[in-house]
């Protein structure tokens, strides 16, 4: 038992260490609302967890499978609009809406991967393609009359109801999104130990070598894109239902796009706990700065985002988790 907590064990079973961190985080988050009576703080944590969910979904495609999905927000926006439109126009339960969002995001992922793989777009060109797709979708939704055009659509409140995922208080939503994040992170952990997850990592590390040892890279890149797209779309649905508002510039916008990516990268992409720790650090910081200085110093919050991102890339390219690992290694040597 004692050995299980030695630094050696923690380092050589890195994924299990991260699962323990996830467990500790979950327990803290579980009891946290007991000490919070401000619904504003609760709101910040809900927003944080929605962002974790999306950052973690991006992490599957970019962190594990190594694909440069720079315009990843396209899946988020499509999911957000599907859930919102189904709920607003047809009064369909949010849960079914989220499922439909996952299908929609998965189909978009299928389309993107089919086109990209068919025409062999790689690296820079893949990144530009995803970016162009996301901006195309932004413009398309801007010009779609039934989606509310540039003004977007408001989600009406239809009473506290578990089926609609709408509640008078913020607490139920908090626990539901917490569960979503826990399940997704545990899923990523399990995925990393399956054949598929290992194939993803092999493709990321060396695509040519992966192909040479017989991995069907086209197939597994497609799987990664569909999986990540579907999950990101669910994140989009949760976001629009929670904020009760879907607007093209918000759900397809450039800055939000990079926000998700920044969080996963700052925490450590390709790790299980990275997107969580990165978002837990950045999102509340951002909300705090916006609340405190939004009126007097507009831009400060995102200025710090940009600065933190640049510093992390320059000095800690593997993020907080990489730093943590390095520190453990240092302790071991002493």
């Amino acid at each position, binding site marked *: 038992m004692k050995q299980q907590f030695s630094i050696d064990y923690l380092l050589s079973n890195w994924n299990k260490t991260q699962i323990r961190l996830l467990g500790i985080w979950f327990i803290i988050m579980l009891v946290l609302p007991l000490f919070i009576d401000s619904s504003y703080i609760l709101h910040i944590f809900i927003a944080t967890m929605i962002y974790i969910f999306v950052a973690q979904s991006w992490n599957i495609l970019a962190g594990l499978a190594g694909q440069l999905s*720079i315009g990843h927000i396209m899946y988020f926006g499509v999911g957000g609009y599907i859930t919102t439109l189904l709920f607003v126009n047809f009064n369909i339960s949010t849960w079914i809406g989220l499922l439909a969002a996952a299908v929609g995001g998965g189909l978009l992922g299928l389309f993107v991967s089919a086109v990209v793989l068919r025409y062999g777009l790689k690296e820079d060109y893949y*990144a530009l*393609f995803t970016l162009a797709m996301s*901006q195309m979708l932004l413009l398309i939704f801007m010009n779609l009359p039934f989606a509310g055009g540039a003004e977007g659509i408001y989600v009406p409140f239809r009473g506290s109801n578990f089926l609609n995922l709408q509640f008078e208080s913020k607490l139920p939503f908090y626990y539901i999104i917490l569960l979503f994040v826990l399940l997704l992170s545990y899923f990523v952990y399990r995925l990393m130990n399956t054949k598929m997850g290992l194939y993803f990592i092999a493709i990321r590390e060396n695509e040519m070598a992966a192909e040479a040892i017989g991995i069907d890279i086209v197939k597994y890149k497609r799987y990664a894109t569909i999986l990540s797209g579907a999950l990101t779309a669910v994140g989009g649905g949760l976001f629009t239902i929670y904020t009760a508002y879907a607007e093209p510039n918000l759900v397809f916008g450039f800055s939000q796009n990079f926000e998700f990516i920044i969080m996963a990268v700052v925490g450590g*992409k390709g790790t299980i706990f990275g997107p969580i720790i990165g978002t837990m650090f950045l999102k509340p910081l951002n909300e705090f700065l916006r609340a405190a200085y939004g009126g007097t110093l507009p831009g400060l919050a995102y200025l710090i985002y*940009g600065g933190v991102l640049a510093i992390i*890339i320059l000095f800690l390219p593997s993020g907080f988790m990489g730093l943590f690992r390095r520190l453990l290694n240092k302790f071991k040597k002493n």
Partner: protein
Amino acid sequence: MDMMTFIQATINGLMIGGIYALIALGLTMIYGVLKIINFAHGEFVMLGMYVTYVAVSTTGMSPYLSILITIVFMFIVGALVQKYMINRILNAETLNQVLLLAGLSLFMRNLIMMIFSPNNQSINFGLSHYSYLISNYVVNAPRLIAFSVGVALCLFLYYFIKNTKTGKMIRASAQNRMGALLTGIDVNRSFIIAFGIGVTAAGIAGSLLATFYYISPTAGQPFVLTSFVIVVLGTMGNFIGALIGGLIIGLTESYAAIILSPSMKEVVSFSLFILILLFKPSGIFGGKKNETTI
């Protein structure tokens, strides 16, 4: 669409195309030499706008004279960014390169927002609202000057990179880093000059835009994607391609705005972008190989 509207749209498209070309030229230079997609390019355009804005509103000088200040300022900014940031990640994975520049663009945009407020500004000078009337067609004077300067600078930079010693050093460093080092070329210096020039081109375009476009911290953003479209269309790393690509996209957007609707012009250029990426990612000057070296 009658003939007159068509010709007027052609004039407008060419005018803006000249500016597009200058912005894209900077981007294509940076990509051609450093193999880095400059996601902060729009913010460098925006910085150029603010240099002119500050110079004109504090001293009352002509915005065209302020271009000299822009050149010095932007070159220094570019050289510093290259020396202390880009140079460290030249061999890093593409994602980190993209994200560093995205972070830099967030930083610059919001820094300017903090200093100058998010509001739109504009400058007023003698020529602001002056237009020439050439046989019934309206040609806005600041746009015409911007177009001429943009095209002239594109041609000058093409000459510079092809024929001067510094230009040849930059090309050698881009084509074969090790080979250039072996012949005694200071590769790091070439990279600094190349990035500096790329950023300066964007800055000058910003200064020229400031004479007829609104100035705001987010004003550079629409130009990022447009210039990506242009450099891919005109082959990444190809100067003449950037010039022709800029004019093509300028015309395309101008025609799309009158045939469809002004809000659809970007849809058309993005559709064009996606089609080029899929069917001819090497662009119109690319030949069969994915040749991107300048």
